[in-house]
Each structure stands twice: as C-alpha cells, then as structure tokens.
C-alpha cells in the first residue's frame, strides 16, 4: 500500500492572555502526534470536545501552521511549500466541514458554490462547461441538477451537506478530511451521508480522515481509529474489532449505549471531566480520572509504543 499522508511529531501550541492583567498561558492543542495514512484507507479520529481533533484536521491541511513537526503529502513536504505550489496542492486535499449551514455562502447559488473551487484554482470554463460540471458533481452526490440555481436556505441540512461534499470533490482530490460531517444531522440523514461517502470512496478511490465523537459511527465506518485525549494520541486501534488497551478508550466504549433494551447494563461512568488543557500535569493527562493509575502515571509521560501493531500510550495497558 502506498502512503498518502505521513504526519510526524506534529504539535500546535496556542498562546492566550498576555495583556496587562493576564499572565501568558499556553496550551498544547495537538501534542506530538504521528501517524500515516495509506491510499484508500478510512482513518478515524475520536475524542471528546477539546481533545484537539479539529485542530489536527486543520494542521494536516495546513490551514493553520504547526508549532513543530512535519506533514508529508504524496511524498511532498507540505510545510516547505511556497504559497503558489501550496495552493495547487490544495486541489488534492479537501475538507468537509461540520456545519453545512455555515459552510456555504448564503448569497451563492448551489452552482456558484460547487464551481467556486475552479475559480480559485484558475480554471476558466465557459458557462456551458460550468453547467456540465455542476450537473456532474450534483449527480455524484445524489442531488438533482435542478437544485443548481437554488440558494442554500432553500435546502435541507442533508442536502447542504451533500453540496459541501460535491464542492470538496470538484477538484478530484486524493484526500478528504471529514470534520464531523454528520454531527448536525438527523440519524436518517446521517445514514444517507455515510452511505454516500462509502460509495464515493469506492468509485473515486478516495482516502478519508474521519473526525467524530461518535465511537459507534467511527467503528462502523473506519478501517483504523486514532483515539485522542487532550491533544495526544493515546491509542491507535489497528482495526475496529481490536479490543481497547488504553483505559480511556475502554471508558469511551463503555459510555456508548447499545441500541438494544435486552443488553441493558449498568454503566459505571467515568468520574470527573476532561481537565483544562492549560498547564497539563507532567505525567499521563488521563491519570486523574483513570481507574488503574499508579504513582508513575502522574510523573512519567507514557509514550505511544507499538507492540504487536497496536500502539498504546499507557504504563498499564489493559
């Protein structure tokens, strides 16, 4: 399998405060994250809010600059690209955003929205060619071409998300970063969008990075899963059947409910909540909430060690 994307020790530190009455505080939104994605794979990224999922997505596409680390895309060093080649490269990597209601300019027709990428990349098409392109793209995502002259407010949430996907596909990308593409949609529509994404992956040989907080959806849709907690990858599930080895992953799995009243169980909820990402403890960030934590966990940072092809960052893996 060819590697499409290689992320090495990627970190992003945000600085806040620093006014006359506020001390400077820094937070590591993404901390020392490394992974690689092969062509045709669907890699899931899960974690609770504030764990750095969306920041990671933006870093991969270089929508924000990392503090340190490297991103290799199709064997090119993304961070070394000058603005012009970078823009050309962006055609190969696209993003689908979480909220389809705000991702499309309300004053653009659907036709404008899906052909905007061509303008940005400097492709000049005649009106007729643009019509054909629009019809093709809308057809690809299961929308009628009659919608081309509609405005976003005339569409439902599911239709808007399809437009978001059509737009991302306009330039024939190799990689799609999907940032919670179904979080604001109803379940019946979520299922439609997921089936659409599955079909497109097979037809267009796409590679996905799928960001979500919904573990059952990620287990269903992805080939492998990165579990993040406070900016770090704590475990990589090499396939979705793999048993969790990190106590945090275990807890996440235990917190998802079975849709079967016959399988009712008493959930022992995790105590406490995600701590503030400012001023993290020196050891494992999960130690304070972890049932199997020992003294070592609060002083020594566990590294992501890969034995048996199932990397986990924990001193006491399950």
């Amino acid at each position, binding site marked *: 399998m060819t590697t499409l994307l290689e992320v090495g020790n990627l970190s992003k530190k945000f600085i806040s405060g620093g006014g006359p009455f506020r001390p400077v505080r820094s937070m590591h939104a993404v901390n020392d994250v490394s992974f690689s994605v092969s062509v045709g794979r669907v890699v899931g990224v899960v974690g609770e809010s504030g764990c750095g999922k969306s920041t990671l997505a933006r870093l991969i596409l270089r929508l924000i600059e990392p503090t340190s680390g490297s991103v290799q895309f199709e064997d090119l060093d993304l961070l070394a690209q000058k603005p012009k080649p970078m823009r050309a490269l962006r055609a190969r990597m696209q993003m689908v955003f979480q909220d389809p209601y705000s991702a499309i300019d309300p004053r653009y027709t659907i036709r404008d929205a899906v052909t905007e990428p061509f303008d940005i990349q400097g492709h000049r098409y005649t009106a007729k060619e643009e019509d054909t392109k629009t019809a093709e793209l809308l057809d690809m995502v299961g929308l009628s071409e009659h919608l081309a002259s509609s405005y976003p407010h005339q569409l439902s949430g599911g239709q808007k998300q399809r437009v978001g996907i059509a737009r991302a596909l306009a330039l024939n990308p190799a990689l799609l970063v999907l940032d919670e593409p179904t979080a604001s949609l109803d379940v019946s529509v979520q*299922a439609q969008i997921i089936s659409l994404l599955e079909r497109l992956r097979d037809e267009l040989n796409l590679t996905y990075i799928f960001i979500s907080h919904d573990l059952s*959806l990620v287990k269903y849709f992805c080939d492998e899963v990165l579990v993040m907690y406070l900016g770090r990858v704590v475990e990589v599930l090499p396939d979705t059947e793999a048993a969790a080895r990190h106590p945090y992953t275990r807890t996440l799995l235990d917190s998802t409910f079975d849709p079967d009243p016959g399988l009712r169980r008493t959930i022992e909820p995790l105590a406490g909540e995600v701590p503030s990402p400012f001023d993290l403890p020196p050891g494992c960030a999960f130690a304070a909430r972890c049932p199997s934590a020992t003294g070592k966990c609060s002083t020594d940072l566990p590294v992501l060690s890969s034995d048996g092809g199932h990397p986990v960052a924990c001193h006491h893996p399950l």
Partner: protein
Amino acid sequence: MSMLRVQDLGVSIANIYPLSGVSFELERGEIIGIVGESGSGKSLTAMSVMGLLPLIGGQVDHGTIEFDGIELTSISENQYRKLRGGRIGLITQNPMTSLDPLKKIGPQVDDVSRLHLDHDKAQAKARTIELLGDLRIPEPASIYHLYPHQMSGGMKQRIVIAMALAADPDLLIADEPTTALDVTVQAQIIRLLGDLVKQRNLSLVLITHDMSVVAQTCDKVMVMYAGTAIERGGVHDIFNSPSHPYTKALIGCIPHGLSETVRLKGIEGTVPGVAQYPSGCRFHPRCALAEDICKETVPVFETAGSRAAACHFALGTAQ
C-alpha cells in the same frame, strides 16, 4: 391513576397545526421515551404538558392532558404556575443557556424551593446543598457559590437537574438532556436520571433523538414523525419487533454493532416541514411499503395489547 395521561393532543399556532394525534400514558416510577428526528414534534409535546405554548403563540387545539387527575388544558395560568417547577420539573436541552449567567448557581436553585415550598433563606440553602450532594456534585457547599461560567457543561446540567428537583416534583420532563454533552458525561447524566427515578419514585418523560439512550433507560416508547405519534409500546416490543416501517427504518439508521456485511441503511428524503405535511400517512413519501391507500387515508392507531401503531400495514406485514 396514571401520573400523566395525554389523549389525542393537537396544537395550533395561528392557523397552522404542527402537532396532532399524540396520546400516551405514564405511571408513577415509569420512564417514557419520546423519540423522533428534528421537527417531529417532541419538544412541542413537552411544551404542551408544561403549558408553555403561549410563549410561542400557540395553544392546545384539541385533546386532553391529565396530570395526576388534574386536567391541565382547563386550569388557570395561576394554577399552572404552581405546578410548573413545583410538581412538574423541566430539564432543558442546553445547560449553557438555561442558567442566569449573572447569578451564583446556589441562589438560583434556592429560588425554586423558596417559591414552591415556602422555605426561608436558610432552609432553602440547606436543601440546595443537600440536593447538590445527592446529584454527586463534589464539595456542594463551595460549588454553591460559583457562577455558571465557572462550571463545565456536565456540571451545569446537574445544576439544571437540581433546579428541576428542588420542589420535589412528581413528574420530570427532560428535553434532550444530554445532546450538548460529551459521551462520557452523557453516560453520567443518563445514569443519574435513572437512579433518581428509582430513588424518588418519579415519572420521567425523556425526549431524545437517540434510540440507544431510549433502549438503555426507558420502560416504554412513543415514536413521533412529522408532528404526530406513529407508534408506541414497551421498549422491548419497539426494538425487537417494530410495527411501523418508520420505527424499523429509524433503528436501521444506528451504526452500532453492524458488521462488514450489514451496511447502514438511511431513509430516503427528509422530514417534511409543517407547511408540507403530506396527505394520508405523513411518512408515505419515504416509506418502502407505501401504496395508494397511504396517500389518501390517514392511518389510525391499531392497538394490540400494550402496543399500537398508526400504519395501514402495521403489526404483521411490516415485520
């Protein structure tokens, strides 16, 4: 006598009719789940029971809502005010906006017992602190003095629950109580609600779009679609042998535990808006089993034991 009994409830707002045909019953100590996608009328049902429809310019058009023998549709606003927050507690969806940001959380909870139970300041404070402890909030005496912005989402939701419980209600209505929360916190809150119902022998109406939450917590279920109820029954019946094609399809949309061979099935189309409710069965344009009768005739509830479904092809052919 049932704690809550809603019969053929219909709501009008100006000259539109966003809700109709809603009936259910709830006994003491029971949890009913009201599930459906957005726009199905779940929250309108809750607002009708709480008597809050005037806030959005609506009113109960027809039907009855009986709470512990009191017919709620005919009582005065003054009587309603005594029940609301008193014997009927409401837990809202978004804990970020349901607390007063300018007021410490303790006194906000105090207000409820001072108003409804005539507690004085000291009594109310003692009660609030005890209640916060019951809700497994660490160090309730110091939490009492915090402002909402100093707390996390899960903690705020517990405060909202404390407010709902402060006057010792008999009925709780929780409108999407965990939608804004992370999964681990959702698990905590759902567990807490289940425990409270048992300990205090409450009745709970749990409104949610999440079928998994329903499966794990409810005794019975009412499924809604496009402003009307389409199926109700015991939780095991609903999940093991759904009668209405919509219920079946909705369960098919859950990605949990599906294998490589069983792929996710969506439902074609979208929930229609109030202005575009289709004729006959409102689900017919999206239904795989629909025939001509579905376009023309509104299906009535067919009851079989404790379960009922409004479908021309229910209880048999749909299975």
